[in-house]
């Protein structure tokens, strides 16, 4: 079985038409579904949160396919990522549609993750910085470790709206503090 890093690639990754945007509607729908699935799986296992359209993304090309149809063109990448966005599993980061935030966990799932993390570590009624949540000692070995900052903030804001915590400006200019009050 082929791998990309430590990610197991499915057989159809070597099927040349997989890398050409199919014009026939039913075929295209199936192709899009398979790409969505593959992108989410890959990002989850490799902890990738952002895909930039202009940059090389290893999943989007297959060196094994010699005819060099083995690389998704710009239009195809747009199509698959837009499909993810429509499904709510991704978001365009700004109007230009150049960078895509991949939500292989939905924001709600991340929020639940944070709540679980707080409970597991007995951090209720304490204060932490955002950075500590991401890269602190407690976060090691959890999903939260290395989480994209934008996503983390969104999850925290969601929890703030539910009254589970409060976000406030911290001592240093670029780090905010969180007071949990689950």
């Amino acid at each position, binding site marked *: 079985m082929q791998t990309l890093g430590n990610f197991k690639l499915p*057989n*159809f990754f070597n099927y040349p*038409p997989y890398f050409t945007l199919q*014009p026939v509607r039913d075929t295209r729908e*199936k192709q899009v579904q*398979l790409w969505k699935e593959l992108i989410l799986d890959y990002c989850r296992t490799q902890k990738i949160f952002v895909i930039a359209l202009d940059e090389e993304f290893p999943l989007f090309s297959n060196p094994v396919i010699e*005819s060099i149809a083995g690389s998704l063109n710009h239009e195809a990448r747009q199509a698959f990522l837009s499909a993810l966005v429509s499904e709510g599993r991704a978001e365009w980061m700004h109007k230009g549609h150049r960078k895509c935030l991949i939500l292989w966990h939905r924001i709600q799932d991340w929020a639940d993750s944070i709540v679980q993390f707080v409970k597991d570590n007995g951090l209720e009624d304490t204060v932490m910085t955002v950075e500590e949540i991401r890269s602190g000692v407690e976060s090691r070995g959890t999903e939260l470790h290395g989480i994209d900052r934008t996503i983390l903030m969104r999850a925290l804001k969601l929890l703030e709206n539910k009254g589970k915590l409060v976000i406030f400006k911290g001592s240093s200019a670029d780090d905010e503090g969180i007071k949990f009050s689950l």
Partner: protein
Amino acid sequence: MGCTWCEISQLESLELYFSIHYNIDRQLRSNFTFHHCFDQIPQMSTRWLPAAQLTASGRPVFILGEVESSLLSGVDIEPDDQYPNLSPLKSGILILTTHRLIWISDSSSAFAIPLSAVTHIFSPKKSIKAMFASPRIRIQVLVSPQNGCLDEKGSKSMVITIVVRGKTDPEAFLGKLWEAWRGRAWETLKEESSSSTSTDEGSSRSGIRTRSAVVGVAGILRKEQEMWESTDKSLQDAFQDLNALMDKAKEMVMLAEKMRQKLLSGPSTQGTGTNDEEIGSKQEMQDWMLSVGIASPVTKESAGALYHQQLSRQLADFVKIPLEKAGGMISLIDIYCVFNRARGTELISPEDLLQACSIWEKIDVPVMLRKFDSGVMVIQNKSYSDEEVLARINALVLKPDSLRSGISASDAAMALGIAPAMAKEHLLTAESKGLLCRDISPDGFRFYVNLFGEILTEDIYLVKDYGTYGTWISAVLASR
């Protein structure tokens, strides 16, 4: 009271009638009164002209050397009042050729008046009545005395009136009718067969020559005479050359027709006697024959307003052979080339071709025009089905090589025996039906069998045991 068909009195005809038709069935008997000639059944009272053969698309079948020259629409043909039992032919197309006047009705029956049976063409009447009525052309033809049926060897004559109710110009037609009648094209064959016998007689007579005076005034006059005669003769010879050329051309076309008939009727040779050369040259011959196909093209001059309709019918006839050669489907561009080549002169424009094809919808012909999504237009038999080609493509695309690297339009063209442009259309059709998937690379389009149907989104690693997906995987692995 006499026979309704001829003047023979009742008594006579009854006897004859019963003596010949003793056993004729009751229904027939009740249908007519006392005619003694077996062929003359009243239902046949329309059959006073010989029938003319039509092709499958409603065009007349021409005899050897017959060339169409003009066409009128909305024509009635009325027989003489002398023969009240003959019913007129109503509302058809009248085609003038070098040999006949052919009348074709809408309901695809056709009759012909051989020009050899015409004894006189009347000048059009100039009267006030004639100005307001539909134009009429009157001709006198030879008929059989018993029943008024047209007969080249008949002893009586009858006047036939051709009533022109359509919009086409009868004067031009009349002019051409005179030309054709005077041309006596039907006699050349007879001439040729009879001239061969007369030359034998002539050569024996030419032995003796009389000596003529070469001195004095008589001599000068003689010389003048001779010079005049020799000029006349060389002029004649020159025209002979032209005639000879035209005859040769006619011969060539006849030869081509004969060979074409031979090739068409000869089945693919079986048995051990054939060698490859023979077959190869036969193929060449066939190709060459195709380009010498049409001896009597429909032209704007000959058909006028009905040009497109007649062209459409001629095209439908012509297209049968190239269609078969090309496997049931041929592109419009190819037909344009081949058809024009066969016509030789009087080429048709692309618009004419397109219009002729679109008329096919309205008339009953076995071919049709088809436009693909990509815009490519083809001609195909109405009986043609995509299914067969799609099945062959399916088989092709499941071969190990095709599984590994797909097929291009030229691969398909070679395997299916059709033109690459047609092959591409078929591949695109197969793709739109979900049979194939495309792969675009700098080399161009390649098509693979569609595997997407077999892959599950819920489990992207699953490979079913007996599917094409599995076969594909094995084929790909085998090449590594």
